């Protein structure tokens, strides 16, 4: 069969479909978004009625997947690394309850923060929850690991984490498929206590989880994803995790002169690593993200300077790895023939011309500048975070999904006179609704701008959970209807917007302003689709 040319994300999606998936649950987030989109666009999903609608956030995604697993079917949960924080509660408890239908939890990390606020390493979460982690080095492995991951999950009775990073998620290569498996039939746990985590049950389940660590160790030790390549020169031994293996081999295309342990499945195969520690003079760990493996194996054998990696300083502690960084660690030369000319300037991303957020910021900036130091604007996560950059330079914060409203409230509690929150519609329903309820209950004198473009814009225009419901949600939470204002962010409405924003900022209670205009990207796409339909 001719291989399919797939992004790492698409390979994961195709594997899940082939492995008999019944539902994918996810909230969009770079670099994980394309997994769910691939399943949504697949004709097979429609034909087999596979659930693929976006969830409101990562926590609802994980919980719904647990419901599907409870009913015996296979589910896939996908999110970016910071989304794992949001899903951490059900994730941690899913390893206490265990699963029935296979559950693969994809955590897509973003080292170098191409499109994120931090570069946290999701392997901590996998280890924290004490579940197996699979970490592919290429697109074919991503496919194979998801396909095998469902089986592993059902065999051991726990969720399995698949950890990828941006580079693999967004790189294409040829992928060979495996046979199509049917979906599981609905079936339930034989143990009525399994999913009821009252302390009396949870204590038992936790002992079971601890006991299951031996199975997980044995599985890692025998796993084909953990391959050992011996060599006679034992002055070094290399442990290369996930795509770290690629950067090693890129530098030694004729074969690495030292023994290499390629890690693709965790918990780490301890017996194998102890053997390497005994045989090799020095161990070099090449891993993407935090020094998780480097620091773990120090617990197996600590000898000053013996274990080298991102913690010891052999490799940089932060940022994405690449072939040049790894070459330098081995003293290999990757010199450039040409320098980057000085005329080359940074070209930062910007809000699209014609975007409604721009018109909102034009008006907001004018009001905020006139208020001087008494006003601060708390931002949130989305395209509109770019309000920090020129020409607006108006945002003072961007912490996490939903924090604009709660930080504005906290600053108000501290005595700031004019706190303003700016949040998008999708981020609002993801994590801003509870923040708003706190503000309503305190009648905090803050102004919340829900800049509604009726989509999840930054990740490419996925459906937004609150479209058509934002006013109803605000009113339901108790926002005063007299201070709930809807505007159309267009140049011609600039004066009106300035007046409304000024008035509501001056009001000594809670106001919500909703500037609403469809994202120009999704609007253009919709028009194109309509034109096509009219033609047909």
């Amino acid at each position: 069969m001719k291989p399919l040319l797939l992004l790492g994300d698409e390979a994961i999606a195709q594997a899940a479909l082939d492995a008999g998936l019944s539902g994918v649950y996810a909230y969009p987030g770079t670099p994980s978004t394309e997994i769910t989109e691939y399943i949504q666009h697949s004709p097979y999903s429609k034909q087999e009625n596979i659930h693929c609608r976006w969830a409101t956030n990562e926590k609802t995604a994980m919980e719904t997947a647990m419901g599907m697993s409870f009913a015996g079917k296979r589910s896939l949960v996908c999110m970016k690394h910071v989304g794992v924080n949001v899903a951490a509660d059900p994730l941690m408890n899913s390893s206490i309850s265990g699963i029935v239908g296979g559950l693969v939890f994809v955590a897509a990390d973003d080292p170098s923060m191409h499109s994120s606020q931090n570069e946290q390493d999701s392997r901590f979460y996998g280890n924290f929850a004490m579940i197996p982690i699979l970490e592919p080095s290429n697109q074919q492995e991503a496919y194979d690991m998801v396909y095998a991951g469902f089986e592993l999950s059902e065999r051991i009775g726990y969720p399995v984490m698949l950890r990828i990073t941006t580079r693999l998620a967004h790189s294409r290569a040829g992928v060979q498929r495996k046979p199509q498996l049917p979906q599981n039939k609905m079936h339930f746990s034989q143990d009525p206590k399994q999913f009821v985590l009252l302390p009396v049950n949870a204590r038992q389940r936790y002992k079971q989880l601890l006991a299951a660590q031996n199975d997980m160790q044995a599985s890692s030790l025998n796993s084909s994803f953990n391959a050992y390549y011996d060599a006679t020169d034992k002055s070094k031994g290399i442990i290369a995790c996930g795509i770290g293996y690629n950067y090693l081999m890129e530098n030694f295309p004729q074969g690495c002169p030292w023994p290499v342990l390629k890690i693709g499945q965790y918990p780490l195969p301890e017996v194998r690593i102890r053997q390497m520690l005994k045989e090799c003079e020095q161990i070099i760990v090449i891993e993407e993200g935090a020094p998780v493996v480097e620091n773990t194996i120090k617990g197996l054998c600590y000898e000053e300077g013996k274990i080298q990696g991102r913690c010891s300083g052999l490799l940089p502690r932060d940022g994405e790895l690449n072939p040049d960084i790894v070459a330098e660690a081995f003293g290999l030369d990757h010199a450039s023939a040409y320098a980057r000319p000085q005329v080359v300037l940074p070209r930062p991303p910007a809000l699209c011309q014609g975007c409604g957020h721009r018109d909102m910021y034009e008006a907001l900036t004018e009001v905020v500048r006139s208020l001087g130091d008494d006003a601060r604007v708390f931002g949130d996560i989305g395209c509109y975070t770019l309000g920090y950059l020129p020409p607006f330079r108006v945002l003072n914060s961007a912490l996490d999904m939903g924090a604009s409203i709660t930080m504005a409230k906290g600053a108000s509690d501290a005595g700031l006179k004019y706190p303003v929150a700016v949040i998008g519609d999708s981020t609002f329903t993801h994590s801003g609704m509870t923040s708003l309820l706190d503000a309503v209950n305190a009648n905090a004198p803050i102004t919340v701008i829900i800049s509604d473009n009726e989509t999840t814009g930054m990740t490419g225009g996925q459906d937004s959970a609150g479209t058509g419901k934002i006013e109803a949600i605000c009113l339901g939470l108790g926002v005063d209807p007299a201070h709930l204002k809807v505007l159309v962010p267009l140049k011609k409405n600039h004066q009106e917007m300035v007046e409304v924003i000024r008035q509501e900022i001056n009001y000594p209670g809670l106001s919500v302003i909703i500037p609403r205009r469809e994202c120009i990207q999704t609007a253009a796409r919709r028009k194109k689709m309509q034109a096509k339909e009219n033609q047909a």
Partner: protein
Amino acid sequence: MKIDIILSGVGGQGILSIATIIGEAVLSEGLQMKQSEVHGMSQRGGDVQSNLRISDQAIYSDLIPQGQCDLILSLEPMEALRYLPYLKKDGWLVTSSVPFVNIPSYPEAEALKAALDAVPNKVVLDVESIAKDCGSARSANMVLLGAATPFLHLSYESIEQGIRDIFSRKGEDIVNKNIAALQAGKAVAEQR
């Protein structure tokens, strides 16, 4: 056979459709490839690049090492220069000459030209007016791809077939316009 290409431009210019067509051609010739893309925040008018690696052997890294890139293919002149540290000494730079100005202090035309002139192996062409001249203003990226064909080590026929495969559902007229643009670009590169 091994060729490493960096495609560059500004978010929204359409470098990925060039990559898709090369990808089709690569698969039809039975070669291996890896192609990394930029998604997310930078797509909003920021600098974007794609690393495209083609080989008849296994390819490990998704990223091209410094000083080892055979070809920089760019839809924007300043973006072409951004990746010079990756270019091999005898590598080629094929770029559009038309600046995409969306930052306040974009370099002066002379300074940009001087920096381009310092690169020995290059094809600099106005892909937009060439596309317009052959009646296909929207196919500027195919003009650029055409100008790169002498350096790709793939048969011209398989590139043309790639265009047919990708655009066939849009109709014969679109296919022909894109192929005309491809040929126009190829002609410029061959006259150098």
